[in-house]
């Protein structure tokens, strides 16, 4: 009862409620559909703002002011009806006035999306459309080798790796960070000088037809498919549907100059004989040998006929071998020297929250919280197997966006974790925790499982839980809008 009253009270707390609404909008990138989905799923608005606070940007401030004005007007309207009922006997004035007053949280939670939708339809979309059309002309005219990088996971890492390696000998430009949709491609096209040798363009698929449209605009000459896994299943509905879209890149290129990560099991049904496959055994006819993995990174050599290139990378994990092998062999194919390639591989740095290792309280923490798919879990748990430690700890909240495959994916996740034999598994309590626990059981896990109600408290105090000799692998993130 106390909690119910608390949950209701938040609706009518002027300081908290409008900020909560704007926070939800900001967290969902001002996407009305995602925001409304979250709004209607939320049972306790006291527990919405947990992981971060509202970033008071200009847009956020404008929305807050708009909300305050709107709510104030609605409250005044309600009071006016009550006033008219009291002093002028307006029939139904009391009931209607009270209804107007108590309904303001629901009314304004929805009305706030109207300016967003309006601005998107009237201003943003037409502008973006024009820019995308213009970028298509720029890409078509550009003489560079244009490498499109698509896949359910590992795209940004592949692109950054290629950028590091190829930049040692070529003039390379790449789409920045994980800016990978059509509007980002358009901004990227505007920034090009026209003198680049190679363009690296990341394709961030979000729904059916995206990859095909990106290819038609960016006119790639080469395509890399980094893997296929359940992701964005709220739009694609199935992995097969996502695969159809991602492999439309190969259709665009008529199956020529296509490089596919064959370590991703779901790609198997889409692979054509003309495709070039890469994996930890090699790429483009080069054979990988002597793989060594530790907390400092990954090293191995590549051999083809009489030629051998030994590379050392700070990137962590066996799953990096395939992408590094492809980068090395593509660089060699594009005419770079062994020295340039070796220096390029050595200069590649892991991206933030992607298998980033750092020391804490004498132990090692591997931050892979950016990961969000089962293949990443496979790679992470394999890394845990490959590394030796006095105590191994695996920390995860589970995966978001798994659609209908939610239960199956998390059972598999539990099995994979069990297989890596950590001494301690820490699960952040949420809707998928029980599936992971069940998966751990199926996988015969014999270690300790700890379920954390307060993930932030655990993350912030991780240093108190670990010591020298410990390796902690933290995978996946669970933003507030999935809580």
């Amino acid at each position, binding site marked *: 009862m106390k909690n119910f009253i608390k949950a209701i009270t938040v609706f009518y707390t002027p300081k908290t409620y409008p900020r909560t609404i704007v926070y939800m909008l900001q967290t969902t990138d001002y996407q009305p559909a995602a925001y409304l989905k979250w709004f209607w799923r939320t049972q306790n608005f006291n527990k919405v703002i947990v992981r971060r606070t509202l970033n008071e940007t200009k847009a956020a401030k404008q929305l807050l002011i708009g909300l305050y004005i709107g709510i104030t007007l609605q409250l005044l309207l309600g009071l006016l009806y009550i006033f008219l009922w009291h002093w002028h006997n307006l029939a139904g004035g009391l009931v209607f006035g009270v209804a107007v007053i108590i309904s303001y949280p629901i009314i304004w939670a929805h009305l706030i999306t109207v300016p967003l939708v309006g601005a998107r339809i009237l201003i943003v979309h037409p502008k973006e459309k024009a820019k995308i059309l213009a970028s298509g002309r720029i890409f078509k005219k550009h003489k560079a080798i244009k490498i499109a990088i698509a896949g359910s996971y590992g795209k940004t890492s592949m692109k950054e790796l290629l950028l590091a390696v190829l930049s040692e000998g070529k003039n390379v430009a790449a789409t920045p960070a994980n800016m990978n949709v059509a509007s980002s491609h358009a901004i990227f096209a505007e920034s090009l000088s026209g003198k680049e040798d190679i363009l690296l363009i990341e394709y961030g698929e979000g729904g059916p037809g995206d990859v095909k449209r990106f290819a038609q605009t960016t006119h790639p000459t080469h395509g890399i498919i980094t893997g296929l896994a359940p992701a964005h299943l709220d739009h694609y509905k199935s992995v097969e549907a996502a695969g159809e879209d991602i492999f439309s890149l190969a259709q665009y290129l008529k199956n020529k100059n296509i490089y596919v990560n064959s370590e991703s099991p779901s790609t198997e049904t889409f692979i054509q004989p003309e495709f070039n496959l890469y994996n930890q055994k090699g790429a483009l006819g080069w054979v990988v040998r002597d793989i060594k993995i530790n907390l400092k990174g990954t090293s191995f050599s590549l051999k083809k006929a009489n030629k051998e290139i030994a590379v050392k990378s700070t990137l962590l994990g066996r799953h990096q071998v395939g992408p590094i092998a492809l980068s090395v062999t593509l660089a060699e194919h594009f005419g770079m020297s062994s020295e340039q390639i070796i220096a390029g591989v050595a200069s590649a740095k892991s991206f933030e929250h992607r298998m980033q290792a750092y020391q804490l*309280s*004498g*132990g090692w923490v591997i931050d892979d919280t950016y990961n969000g798919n089962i293949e990443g879990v496979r790679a992470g748990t394999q890394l845990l197997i490959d590394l030796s430690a*006095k105590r191994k700890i695996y920390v995860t909240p589970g995966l978001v966006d798994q659609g209908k495959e939610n239960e199956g994916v998390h059972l598999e996740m539990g099995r994979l974790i069990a297989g890596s034999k950590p001494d301690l598994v820490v699960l952040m309590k949420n809707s998928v925790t029980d599936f992971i626990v069940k998966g751990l059981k199926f996988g015969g896990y014999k270690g300790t499982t700890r379920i954390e109600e307060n993930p932030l*408290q655990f993350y912030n*105090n991780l*240093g*108190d*839980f*670990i*010591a*020298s*000799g*410990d390796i902690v692998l933290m995978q996946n993130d669970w933003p507030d809008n999935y809580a």
Partner: protein
Amino acid sequence: METVAVIFGGRSAEHDVSIITALSAIIKPLELSKKYRVEAIYITKDGAWYWDEKLKDLDLYKSGKIKDFTRKNQPVSLKFEGGLTLVKSGRQGLRKSSRKIDVVFPAMHGTYGEDGALMGLLDMATVAYVGCDLASSTIAMDKILSKEIAIANQIPVTKFVKATRDEINQDIETVIKRVNANLSYPVFVKPTHLGSSIGISRAANETALTNGLEVAAHYDDAVLIEEEVPNLVEVTLPIIGNDDLTPALLEQPLTKPEDFFDFDTKYLRGGKKGKGQGGAKGSQGYSKIPAELPKDLYKKALELGLRTYRTVGCQGIARVDMLIDTKSTAVYFNEINPLPGSLYAHNWHAAGISSVELVERLVTLAKDRFNAQQKLATTFDTNFLQQF
């Protein structure tokens, strides 16, 4: 769920250090373990005891709001009835709350806490508590007494002279003559009972010695003057255990003889004195862990540390400081600290024991000792009274 009461603050020059030890190194990991209900008991500088959830917040002390808190709240009462129970009145004195304590975790540094005074109280209350008992705390916190016990047990110590505050105040010349007759300069002057290096100075001549004696006598009623060890490497060894001992790693403070290990270096500058480097927080980062010593010398110091811990009768946790002449490879016992600041968690981390594991082990050790003590007979029936 067991209830652990953490007692901190107190009538001591190390009052503030105690707050940090309690809040960051003990209460936080105890709560993170989710195995205990943790109660915070704060003792003010004038000796009043308070018990409240709010006392777990460092900002209360940093902001000075603790004064408002103590003005507005009633001190806690202690009930010794089948153990220790905390009893607190509400603001209007109407609602009383009480809590039975299973284990006490003393987080007191210096006088009226680490020196055995608190342990005596807890023994009287018949409650389990973490760390050294009354006798070992008393010995450990008396630098002169601990050296004399070490000598009696063939544990090497540096040459020293002792002086009382009265001697220093009334006839400092005699004290200086005694030092000149028995020791060579430079010497260290130390208050006998204080920890955290408070009041310690290094004297290279009579003038500095005079100043050092006056400073030390300001803090304590007994003063230790000891010879500096040549070719010095200072090491410290945290140890936990009752009968089976677990040493952490030998730690080597990165200080030169002229900027020895004082309070500022340890707690305020976050690193090597005068440079403020080497670590971001408190005592972390001003030392090498493990100490860089030849294997044999490392082993010798480790064994001496463990032997000293046993000799003094320490239990639970303590830290043994030693001085090494690297040329002669002589290792001297310097002093023993029954409650290392912040439990020396940074060293335990390096040794493979996390903060959470450390406090859990210490609570278990406290219960083990208490249970063993409860089996001892402390009374027996006689007809003594009938004879009168």
